[in-house]
């Protein structure tokens, strides 16, 4: 909301010296936040001057400058003519111009000083409109004041700042949705008074007194809402006033056009400008119809299916049955009630009689229409937030008075005022409760004084009051609403600061701790953490090579996505990481290691019912709502592109390979003390021969890691051999164990190496598992220390060399024992995998 300061001054007494910033500071205290200050970004001395001499001097650079002397009265302190060099020549000797004397600062921080130029000392500047931040007046250069102002009222040396309105300021404030009444000068003025104690006279009181009551001659209007919304009729008051004999040639006076412009509205024509002016002044949206185009009666009704209306913005709209319409005779739509008028009934250049509508529309009806038609207007914004429920007659009266005064009209005696009674809002208030909620001990008479100040009427005494809020505050419905009023008018700065003692909690949860551990571990291994928005497109699933029946293809769609290319919710984090990796590579970082943890969609969604606000729908309903929310496990994904270890003076680098990616899984498993099983996997998006499938000991799938499928690499715009992995972090953390200490043996260990020849298809993990089984409890560790494939073994075989380390808890193992254990291990491996010992 833009508030021109001089308009605000009309309704509330603001100290003469107060600037826009002071007003903004006063308003912020009562909850109207400053959004910006406009205008008055110039300081003088900026004065009226009369050009005495103008000598044109051609220059070597092709320009012609004017060496002028200008009479600026006594404004320069000497009374002598001021010598000024001026590049523009659209003025002549004798003209009245605007002179910025040395010391003035023009918009943009442009400081004026006396300086030497083109062989003269130029002591100031003769100003053009744009240099002063004024709109161009068509002169195309220097302002000739006589074109704008009555020359006989001007004298050299006069302060030009107020003459040109350059001291005008507009304060822009943010109006919260509960304060519909602050979308008016009247409302903001009242709040300024609340903040500063300044004298405020509500202009509506006198207008309401002057407004005539409805009479039988009034223009026929029918309220025919056959489908009230949420039990509330769409229109509960309709005031119609008629003004005839308007002068079609009358134009909007400058002062009104200026105020409208400063408030952010475009002047259109006098009658339209008057309705807008009244809306901005008082907060009541009005609409004016060309009386000669309306046959009547005006019927307010809901729209019919398929009905259309071309609104003033020249858009033909198909209406919804819930839309509330103003119609002529019940048939022809004249406007979308409270949102925008239609082209039928629109005021034209020849309009001489108007019908002014001032109505009370239900916020819900208007909000829904505006939303359905994506049409937020000055009117709808006010009705949605709640317009003063007793403002229609006063606002219509002001519009009529202005039409009479400015457009030469004649107010018709016919007055329509249809009003359906409103349910009065009365709030029961225990005044002490306010202090208990706010934490300030307000005296009862302080509470009642503040409530009175904001316009409430109060009945009762002691510890129970019946408070009726003013008609402009439909947002006040409960006693905590009144508590906020008392607290803000008394001042939020009076609320003390007290640190409450919480009963003490359990600290971070296992999941929260676990997430930090996983993230720190990956960062410690060289991965940089990223996070991504969770939106993906269908095409990505194809690029990743997901089979048609891959469960990761089933996800939810966003109804209103930012991009039609990415309307789906992700089911996997790895693609996000790869996308970020690609971005890094494209920015010149060739070697990238990244990780991300985040939620993914992991299950079907149901239907979640909603219930009215302020009502506990019951345990069963809450359970049903919660059950409709799809499972969203937290996944951890990582990827490496380029080299895992960079090249340098120490030698060549080492390209990241599948083992780096799979190594992350093992590191995590160790960190969480979780036993995992790794087997050969074939899941997309991995290389089918270089993918590790990871399960928990009980067979629960945890995730996969390895090298990416070459097709995926090129489809995603990557190159080289990127590797990565993804696992279900929730499952990993949940599987985390607290192993029992077993006591360390101080007896010497004994080691024995075996080389086993196996079929190339046999997995090392299976061989190792068999060795462990066969070796028994005295086995301390098994390490695969060499892998050999070659001619000596023949096609299709490979040799796996393991080091077995044995140790007994309470004695030194004998060599024969160790040999026996080793043989048992080898035998077990032979049985399980066909391994034979290579001698």
């Amino acid at each position, binding site marked *: 909301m833009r508030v021109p300061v001089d308009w605000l001054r009309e309704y509330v007494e603001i100290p003469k010296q107060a600037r826009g910033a002071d007003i903004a500071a006063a308003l912020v205290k009562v909850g109207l936040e400053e959004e910006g200050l406009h205008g008055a970004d110039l300081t003088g001395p900026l004065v009226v001057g009369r050009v005495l001499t103008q000598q044109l001097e051609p220059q070597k650079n092709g320009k012609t400058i004017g060496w002028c002397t200008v009479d600026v009265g006594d404004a320069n302190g000497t009374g002598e003519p001021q010598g000024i060099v001026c590049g523009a020549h659209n003025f002549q000797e004798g003209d009245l111009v605007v002179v910025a004397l040395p010391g003035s600062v023009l918009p943009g921080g442009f400081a004026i000083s006396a300086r030497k130029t083109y062989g003269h000392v130029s002591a100031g500047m003769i100003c053009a409109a744009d240099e002063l931040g004024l709109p161009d007046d068509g002169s195309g250069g220097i302002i000739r004041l006589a074109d704008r102002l009555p020359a006989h009222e001007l004298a050299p040396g006069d302060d030009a700042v107020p003459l040109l309105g350059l001291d005008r300021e507009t304060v822009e404030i943010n109006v919260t949705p509960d304060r519909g009444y602050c979308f008016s000068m009247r409302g903001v003025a009242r709040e300024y008074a609340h903040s500063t104690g300044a004298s405020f006279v509500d202009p509506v009181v006198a207008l309401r007194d002057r407004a005539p009551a409805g009479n039988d001659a009034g223009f026929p209007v029918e309220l025919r809402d056959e489908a009230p919304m949420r039990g509330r009729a769409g229109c509960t008051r309709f005031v119609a006033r008629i003004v005839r004999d308007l002068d079609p040639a009358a134009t909007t006076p400058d002062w009104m056009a200026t105020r409208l412009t400063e408030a952010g509205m475009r002047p259109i024509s006098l009658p339209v400008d008057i309705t807008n002016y009244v809306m901005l002044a008082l907060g009541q949206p009005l609409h004016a119809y060309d009386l000669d185009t309306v046959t009547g009666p005006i019927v307010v009704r809901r729209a019919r299916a398929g009905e259309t209306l071309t609104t003033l913005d020249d858009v033909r709209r198909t209406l919804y049955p819930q839309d509330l319409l103003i119609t002529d005779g019940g048939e022809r739509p004249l406007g979308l009630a409270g949102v925008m008028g239609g082209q039928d009934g629109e005021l034209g250049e020849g309009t001489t009689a108007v019908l002014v509508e001032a109505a009370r529309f239900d916020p819900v009806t208007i909000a829904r229409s505006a939303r359905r038609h994506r049409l937020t207007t000055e009117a709808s914004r006010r009705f949605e937030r709640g317009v003063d429920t007793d403002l229609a007659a006063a606002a219509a009266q002001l519009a009529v008075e202005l039409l009479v005064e400015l457009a030469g009209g004649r107010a018709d005696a016919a007055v329509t005022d249809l009003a359906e009674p409103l349910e009065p809002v009365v709030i029961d208030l225990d005044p002490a409760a306010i202090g208990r909620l706010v934490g300030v001990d307000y005296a009862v008479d302080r509470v009642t004084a503040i409530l009175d100040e904001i316009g409430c009427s109060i009945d009762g005494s002691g510890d129970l009051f019946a408070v009726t809020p003013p008609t402009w505050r439909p947002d006040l419905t409960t006693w905590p609403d009144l508590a906020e009023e008392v607290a803000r008018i008394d001042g939020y700065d009076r609320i003390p600061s007290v640190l409450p003692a919480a009963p003490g909690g359990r600290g971070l949860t296992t999941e929260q701790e676990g997430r930090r551990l996983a993230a720190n571990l990956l960062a410690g291994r060289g991965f*940089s*953490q990223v996070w991504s928005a969770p939106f993906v497109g269908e095409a990505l699933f194809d690029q990743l090579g997901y089979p048609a029946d891959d469960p990761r293809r089933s996800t939810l769609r*966003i109804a209103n996505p930012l991009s039609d290319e990415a309307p789906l919710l992700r089911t996997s984090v790895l693609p996000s990481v790869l996308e970020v990796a690609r971005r890094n590579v494209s920015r010149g970082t060739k070697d990238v290691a990244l*990780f991300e943890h985040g939620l993914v969609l992991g299950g079907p969604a149901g239907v979640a019912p909603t219930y009215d606000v302020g009502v506990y729908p019951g345990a069963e309903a*809450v359970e049903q709502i919660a059950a409709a929310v799809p499972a969203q496990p937290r996944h951890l994904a990582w990827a490496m592109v380029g080299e895992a270890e960079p090249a340098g003076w120490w030698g060549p680098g080492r390209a990241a390979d599948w083992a780096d990616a799979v190594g992350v899984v093992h590191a995590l498993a160790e960190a969480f003390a979780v036993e995992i099983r790794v087997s050969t996997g074939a899941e997309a998006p991995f290389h089918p021969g270089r993918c590790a499938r990871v399960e928990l000991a009980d067979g629960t799938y945890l995730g996969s890691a390895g090298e990416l499928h070459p097709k995926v690499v090129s489809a995603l715009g990557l190159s080289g051999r990127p590797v990565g992995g993804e696992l279900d972090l929730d499952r990993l953390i949940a599987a985390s164990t607290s192993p029992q200490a077993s006591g360390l043996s101080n007896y010497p260990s004994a080691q024995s190496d075996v080389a086993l020849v196996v079929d190339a298809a046999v997995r090392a993990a299976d061989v190792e598992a068999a060795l462990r089984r066969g070796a028994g409890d005295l086995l301390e560790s098994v390490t695969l220390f060499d892998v050999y494939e070659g001619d000596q073994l023949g096609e299709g075989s490979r040799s796996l060399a393991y080091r077995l380390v044995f140790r007994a808890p309470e004695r030194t193992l004998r060599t024969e024992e160790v040999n026996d254990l080793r043989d048992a291990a080898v035998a077990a491996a032979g049985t399980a995998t066909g391994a034979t010992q290579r001698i």
Partner: protein
Amino acid sequence: MSGPNTQYDPVEVSALDPAAIDQAVQDALSAIAGATSLDDLKTVRTAHQGDRSPLALANREIGALPPTAKAEAGKRVGQARGRVGGALKQRQAELESERDERILVEEAVDVTMLPGRRPLGRRHPIELMGERIADIMVGLGWEVAEGPEVEAEWFTFDALNFDADHPARQMQDTFYVDPPENGLVLRTHTSPVQARSMLERGAPLYIACIGRVFRTDELDATHMPAFHQIEGLAVDEGLTMADLKGTLDRLATELFGEGIVTRLRPSYFPFTEPSAEMDLRCFVCGGTDPDCRACSGTGWIEWGGCGMVNQNVLRACDVDPEKYTGFAFGMGVDRALMFRTGQSDMREMIEGDVRFNAQFGMEI
């Protein structure tokens, strides 16, 4: 040295002659002193202490002497051998020490050639910031609660007193899950976690909710379609706005340092009544620079919204508003990070450029 001496060939050595013995000693000492390396010394040792050295030979002669001469000769030769042996030992130690020092010098490297063979990764500073705030709240005895990002509309709005037709609900710029009538959205704030916590745990309750939230904003320098919030909710008997202010003051002090000035300013939120905005005194200009870019010259920086929990919220979440009051607050983690680090472009926070994280350590 005491191996079988097959070449033993007794010679009448003049060494038994005192002058010859002295000469042999002098020869040995000067050879020892002249040895400049351990290898040299080894040669010298063989020549002057070995089996064929003059003194060894002289020693062997002693046995053949008449008893009367034995004692004197033995003493003389013994002393001579002792002197040579001592000198050898001392020189050996000197040369070993020199060698050890030389090796240390030779092995020296240029430690300024930073290896960096395995560069350290980084945590994302937004998450670190969230963890820091969580730790502060946990330190105050609160707990950290979490919830889903795809969330039921009822938890997100209705339970929090956002009426379906209230303008505030339109202002949220909500992503709806298709079809919208199924009642699922991407949460626009972490507040549904408050509703869930009240419903699951009842009062008294002191929880902080930290997480990712979504609004239909295109990505630019000051907006992100996804960002991070921290919210607090306390529900207990007798809580007031003063408790709210005290909690926020403490959080601000922990995050931004002693002496930070805060103010509450009236505002509006559907889930709180009374409602307030929490501002911080501009920590760039302190409210003294009308052209300050951090605070736009207002002297204050908007930090977050807060207020006393609306009774309708308590009711919807099955908490008795006659018995309990509560306060709630919420602010952007990303904004807090911007305040702390001077970060000015939000895009850098989400793009994942490794150079962004690399600016920070593993602590924020």
